Each structure stands twice: as structure tokens, then as C-alpha cells.
């Protein structure tokens, strides 16, 4: 077991951060941590990594209590913070040099490989970096000491689709080496591409813990249709607003479309179920 939490709870004074989180992550697993903004993803990560003291409950990484042995834990852990705050006055090279010296297992070879994938203007000062470059630097530093566990808080924010692809390929390679990864995101599509298992957090509580495959089965389409007549389709709960009818189709799309064909359609929109809608539909 790489990560294990038992009733992990964090309150900021009276304000709820996260409540009674219990989950565990196995070695070699990519765990997607999903939730809308403000659900408690960052609070969970920062509590796991010792920035915040739990109000109640326990968290262990590599079997070590995060409240007691966080320095030892960090020797084998990489972290991509959600806030892209790097030392702007340093050049990319100096930044990596500085952090390389603070990491015990810093690995020149690994760094070289990372810089091949995530090219960076190393001679330029970090404050002149674009958001994407900063995110790349953040990725490079998290992996350069060959950690066993990498905790990532919204790591693809700021990466263009091409780089996102490169990043996922890189993560798959890392997984083959037995690395364990914890990735938070508020975008389901993103996490399901790469994760083995997903935890869904809502208002500070873990509402689901599922394999990606079973989550995928919960996919669906949101159908919004504007019709002249009022729509009534058997087995579907629809919402009506300004002549638009919207509903979620999870199973038999074909049947629904054929049913819809009986009406006079003025306009139609069909979209992927967003994470929020999955929450609404499945975990209410």
C-alpha cells in the first residue's frame, strides 16, 4: 500500500475542508482524484503531504505517518502543486540545480530524459516563462529524482493538447516502471484516459471510489432539444425550460433518437455528460 487514509478530516476553523476520507492506493496504480472546484482536492493533497495538519483521522504514505515522518516520505515523493509558484528570479537551469541539490536521489540521466520530452528555455528566467512552460518545469522537477510516488494537483492545466498527449504517454511509461501516481482533476475525460481507479469527492466527502471501467459505464449524453410539442419519453426524466427539454441518456441512444423523431424538432444539442452532471445523475 502506498497511500492509506483513515477518516482523514480537515477543518479550517469551522469551515469544512474534507471529511472522513478513507481510501488506499496500491503500488503501481494511477489514481484519479476527481471533483469540482472547491470540493477539497487540494486540501486532501496538502494534508497528505504535511502542509496541513489533519483535524481528525490519519494518513500514511509508504506506511509512514504523514504527521511524523514527512521528510522521509518526501525523499521518495514528487509533487506538482496546483499553484504554479516557482522562483521567478532563477533561470530554469538554476531552479533545477537548486532543487536537484535538495533532493537526495537526484538523477542526471532522468533529468536529461525529461528535458528531451518537455523542452524548456533553461537559460531564461522563470518569471519570463509562459504558463505552459511553467507547468513543464513543474513536471520536470517532480520526476527528476525518480520518486516512487508522484502527487499531482491538476497537472495538465496550461498544457496544450499536444503536450497533454506527451504527458500522458510519459505517465504510462512511468507506470511501467512501477511508479504510483495520484492525479487530481476536475475534468473526467482527462482522468479516465490515464487512471486505473477514480475517487470522486464532493463537498469534502468521498462519494465514489470506482474502477475507471465501471465509471465509463456510467457515461452518457446530455440531450437538449427544442420542440414544438411537449416531449414525453418513457423512462426518462426531463427538465423543461423556455421550450427546451433536456435529459440524460445513459443506455439506449438509438431508442431515444427514434422516439424523438416523432416530434417536430426546431433545434438540438447533444453533449458529453460533464463531471457535475455525472454527480447529479449518479451520486446525488
Amino acid at each position, binding site marked *: 500500500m502506498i497511500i492509506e487514509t483513515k477518516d482523514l478530516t480537515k477543518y479550517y476553523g469551522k469551515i469544512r475542508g474534507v471529511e472522513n476520507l478513507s481510501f488506499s492506493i496500491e503500488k503501481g496504480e494511477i489514481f484519479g482524484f476527481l471533483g469540482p472546484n472547491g470540493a477539497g482536492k487540494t486540501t486532501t493533497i496538502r494534508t497528505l503531504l504535511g502542509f496541513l495538519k489533519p483535524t481528525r483521522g490519519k494518513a500514511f504514505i509508504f506506511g509512514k505517518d504523514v504527521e511524523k515522518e514527512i521528510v522521509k516520505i518526501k525523499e521518495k515523493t514528487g509533487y506538482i502543486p496546483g*499553484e504554479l509558484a516557482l*522562483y521567478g528570479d532563477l533561470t530554469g537551469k538554476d531552479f533545477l540545480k537548486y532543487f536537484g541539490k535538495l533532493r537526495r536521489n537526484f538523477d542526471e540521466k532522468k533529468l536529461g530524459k525529461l528535458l528531451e520530452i518537455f523542452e524548456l528555455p533553461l537559460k531564461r528566467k522563470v518569471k519570463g516563462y509562459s504558463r505552459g512552460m511553467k507547468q513543464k518545469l513543474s513536471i520536470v522537477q517532480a520526476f527528476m529524482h525518480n520518486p516512487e510516488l508522484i502527487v499531482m494537483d491538476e497537472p495538465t492545466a496550461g498544457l496544450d493538447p499536444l503536450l497533454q498527449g506527451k504527458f500522458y504517454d510519459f505517465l504510462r511509461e512511468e507506470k511501467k516502471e512501477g511508479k504510483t501516481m495520484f492525479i487530481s482533476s476536475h475534468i473526467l475525460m482527462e482522468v479516465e484516459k490515464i487512471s486505473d481507479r477514480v475517487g470522486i469527492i464532493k463537498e469534502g466527502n468521498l462519494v465514489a471510489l470506482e474502477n475507471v471501467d465501471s465509471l465509463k459505464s456510467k457515461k452518457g449524453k446530455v440531450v437538449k432539444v427544442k420542440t414544438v410539442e411537449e416531449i414525453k419519453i418513457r423512462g426518462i426524466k426531463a427538465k423543461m425550460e423556455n421550450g427546451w427539454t433536456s435529459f440524460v441518456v445513459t443506455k439506449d441512444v438509438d431508442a431515444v433518437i427514434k422516439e424523438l423523431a416523432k416530434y417536430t424538432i426546431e433545434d438540438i444539442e447533444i453533449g458529453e455528460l460533464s463531471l457535475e452532471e455525472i454527480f447529479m445523475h449518479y451520486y446525488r
Partner: protein
Amino acid sequence: MRIAIHSVKNSWKGTLILLLLFIGLFVMIIAIYPNMKEFLDMWAESLPEVALSTFGRSGFELSMVEGYLNMEFYQWGWVLTLGVYFVFISSSVISKEIENKTIDMLLSNPVSRARVVLEKFLGLVPGVILVNVAMPIVVLGCLKYINETIDVTYLFYTHFASVFYLCAVCALGLLFSVIFDETKRANVLAIGAISGMYIMEILSILSEKYSAIGKISIIHYYDPGEILVHKTIEASDVVILCIITAVLLAAAAIYFEKRDIAIS
């Protein structure tokens, strides 16, 4: 030591500028001394006792060059102004990392928070030493230029003790730095604390009634006039400054270890 070295690299420019400003100030003060000399005695005699102790704690012998330097330069320039400068930068070092959110990156490394506090402190020490090595050289050079002499041993002691005083000041600033997330607030409160200590010390000299409150002031344990003019250096003062530094650093480290680092 990496964090300390990084911290020195970050702050040496500021310290150097400050040093140059102090040298400029000192040259100005010393340049007018030959012309001022004869008036100073008369002026000193005409002042009431209360004013004397407000200006400087000891050594109001203005006609002696040591007395002049003590009053015009060391008491407010060194003890107060330099104290304020070092409390200002030391109260920024950690609060700035929290405010700028770089603390997440820094603490992603296998370093304890106590080590961060200690290394940030060590990163301030070279600046403290630099000003205390450079200044006596400038003092001696300038005095030679106007044909005045000074006891080199006690000038050395003045700056030797000053190192411990400024270290205690840095430790005080660091304590503020770990408590407050906003750099400005940490700065203002730390400067308020050192200025308050200065006032407490003056008060304790002015009135018997307040003599006890001076003892809780860091400034009470460093009086350049006492060393430079009266040629006495109390080993106990230096030891007390070391203890104050150690206690403040320990408090800062313990507080920093225990607190939540929330970023919003």
C-alpha cells in the same frame, strides 16, 4: 546548506546597497566633525540631562571622537536603523515564500520546516558579518583622513558585539516571518517590535520606575557607547544575546513545524 546559500544569493544586493548607504552617511557625519568639534562641548553642556539620555544611552562626550560617533552614528544609525533593516528582511524570508506560494515547491523537497527556519537564518548571517567587517575599516580610514585616532580594539569589540545583536534581531524577525502569511504585516509588526524595544530601553534609562522593562528589550544588551566610549564590554551581554537568538529561533522552528500552511 542549499537553502541558506540560495537565500544569500537572493539578498546580497540589498545588503550591499545598504552598506554603501551607511558608508555615505558615515562619510558625511565624519566630514563635518572637524568643524563641529569645538561647539559640541558647549552644546552638550547646555542640554538638560533628560535630553542627554534620550539621545544616546551612554557616552555623551561629544568632543571625543568616540562620543561623537556613538551619538551621531552608532546609537540611532547602527542600533536602530540597521536593526530595523535586518528585522525587515528577516521578517520577509518565510512569509514571502508563503505569500508567493513558493513554499509548496520548497517543502516538496525532503527538508523539515525546522531546517528551513535554521537555513533561512544562516542565510542572513553573512550579511550581518559583511556590514560589521566593512564598517570598522571605513571608520578607521575616514578617521585617519581627518587625523583623529580611535582605540582599534574597542572599535573591533563594538562590531563584534554588533554581530550578536543583529543575529538576535534576525531571529526576532524570523519569528514574525513564520507567524504571519502576509509579508507586509510581518514587516510592520516586526519593525514595530524592534522600535518598541528601542523606546522601552530609552524609557528604562529615563526613569527608575521603568528600569525593569529595559531588560526585556534586545537593545538593552548592545550599547555601542558603552564599548566605544567607556571601553567596557560585558561578556554576559554577548551571552544573553546568544541565548535570545537561540530561544527565538527555537520558537520560530517549533511554531513553523506545528502550523498549517494554507494557500488560498
